[in-house]
């Protein structure tokens, strides 16, 4: 289906993707370091952990995805599962 003559789009070039990712990593790094520069108002005990939100966000999402992946093992069925009676 893809036309070889077709115009090159933004993310067709791998270097654009890696440029985007590099910028993204940079922002992540800056945000993490800002935690030590800016004064954060602490209202709950966990917030005292340096970089709490960054760590929490990363770990939470990895756990979320890995658990969901495990859930597939017993939840996943074929698309016509409900359409056929056994």
């Amino acid at each position, binding site marked *: *289906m*893809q036309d070889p003559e077709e115009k090159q*789009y*933004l*993310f067709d070039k791998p270097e654009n993707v890696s440029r985007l*990712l590099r910028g*993204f*990593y940079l*922002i*992540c790094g800056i*945000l*993490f370091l*800002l*935690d030590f520069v*800016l*004064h*954060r*108002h602490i*209202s*709950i*005990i*966990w*917030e005292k952990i340096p*970089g709490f*939100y*960054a*760590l*929490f*966000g*990363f*770990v*939470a*999402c*990895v756990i*979320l*995805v*890995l*658990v*969901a*992946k495990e*859930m*597939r093992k017993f*939840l*996943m*069925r*074929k*698309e016509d*599962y*409900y*359409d056929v*009676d056994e």
Partner: protein
Amino acid sequence: MWMSELPPFVPFFIAALLVLFTRGLVRNAILLLTPVLGGLHLWMNVPEGTLMSVSLLDYELILMRTDRLSLLFGYLFHIAAFIASVFALHVRDNMQNVSGLVYAGSALGAVFAGDLITLFIFWELLAISSVFLIWASRTNRAIHAGIRYLLFQVASGVLLLAGALVHYYQTGSLAFDFIGLEGIAGWLIFIAFGIKCAFPFLHNWLTDAYPEATPTGAVFLSAFTTKVAIYALARGFPGTELLVYIGAVMTCFPIFYAVIENDLRRVLAYSMINQVGFMVCGVGIGTALAMNGAVAHAFNDVIFKGLLFMTMGAVLYRTGKINGSDLGGLYKSMPKTAMLCIVGASSISAFPLFSGFVSKSMVMTAMIEEGYDYLWLMLLFASAGVFHHAGIKIPYFAFFAHDSGIRTQEAPRNMLIAMSIAAILCIFIGSQPQYLYSLLPWEVDYWPYDTTHVLAQLQLLFFSALAFVWLNKQGLYPPELHSINIDVEWLYRKLLPAIGRYAYRSASQLRDSLSGAIRITLQGTQGVFQRSQLPEHYLGGSWPTGYMVMWTAVILGGYLLLDYIL
């Protein structure tokens, strides 16, 4: 224009009737002007404290009762109806146009209802009118999903009516104010609201039916039913602690499903339960800040979830596909839709300067203030998860990811306009929240933009995204697969029918073996009789039944005669 006591649902119902008999430009004008004029009227002419009732037999139906809470939802539903109407303007199918208007009108009727019977009437109208938006897909799957949807919604209505009657019996009043979980009436009404609110285990109608609706129908559906339920909870059960726990569960469990779900509109349906969970938590906490957060989040959710449903509707409309496994690379042919989808995704993920941020943070702050530390962690987990499954997954798998090779056109102009209005509102509310805050029902001094909040939220979101990038690069991210995942619906779509079939089979087996046994016994008896000498005698022959009937009649007649003579 018209008098201030005119209940807001009336113009919608009249418009629905007119749409039945019109077409073309006139019909389009009716579809667009009804929410605009109705909304302007509500905004300018209807003050707080308006009351309008009609007498039906001996009973007073309060069709309109305005206060800051009902007015806010009133404005919201007019905006939602307008955006959805613009989005659906190309639809020639009058079944959808009419049911969309009746549905929006019923939602308005429900939020302005001053008593439980009026609420019940509109509660049921919501169910009946909205199911046509599902059936309008006209597929076998949609028809069955619609029937299941209707069963849940009608059950909710029946519970509400039962609760209302018990409530009347106990208190002598049918006013729709604070109800609380005292006694059976409170519980019945609570569960009725809970079904429409998609409480855990009662949620499956939503993820079952919404993805089967038409591309435009899903936009209407996403706006009204659950938000009416949130309104009802906010009025009937504010500060009910149980709601905090229910809400926390609602925020967490759907995100696991959303990660592995293939149908992108079903992903949005799961994420809707997750967002409603935040609102339920807010209502459960019940402080002024939390309540404001709950209704503000309902307000924002209608717009950003509507926007996301619109972008996915546009994709479905243009490509005929909605599964993540079939899509990808659509930014090449639908760049505007892709941008608008990213705005919606940023809003639902609560990025600073987008609308989700200014309302969700109120609920989160209230949660800390009231000391729900661990539940707050659950909500924080859910916040990160929202970004993961709705914020990244939806735009990524539809518009980027691997190129599916699909080349299509940009969404039609009316869809682009509708999506743009929603996107502008998302950014406007997110960056200028004071206007929304000034409409909120309770007096609270709150401002979301300080270093702590913004930094914390940005860290949370960016590192969630980092997790996505890392998992993808490691090949750990679950691929989109042609599949479905079993949920609570398995109980009534598989287990219950299986039990039914088993019971039927067992019963027919039992019948067969019983009748066999009886037949054999009879045949045996007959054999014994035949072999004996009895059949040779006159009385032992086989007599027709008619003889017995005749002789019985003769005997009875004889008795009658004797009785008469003696």
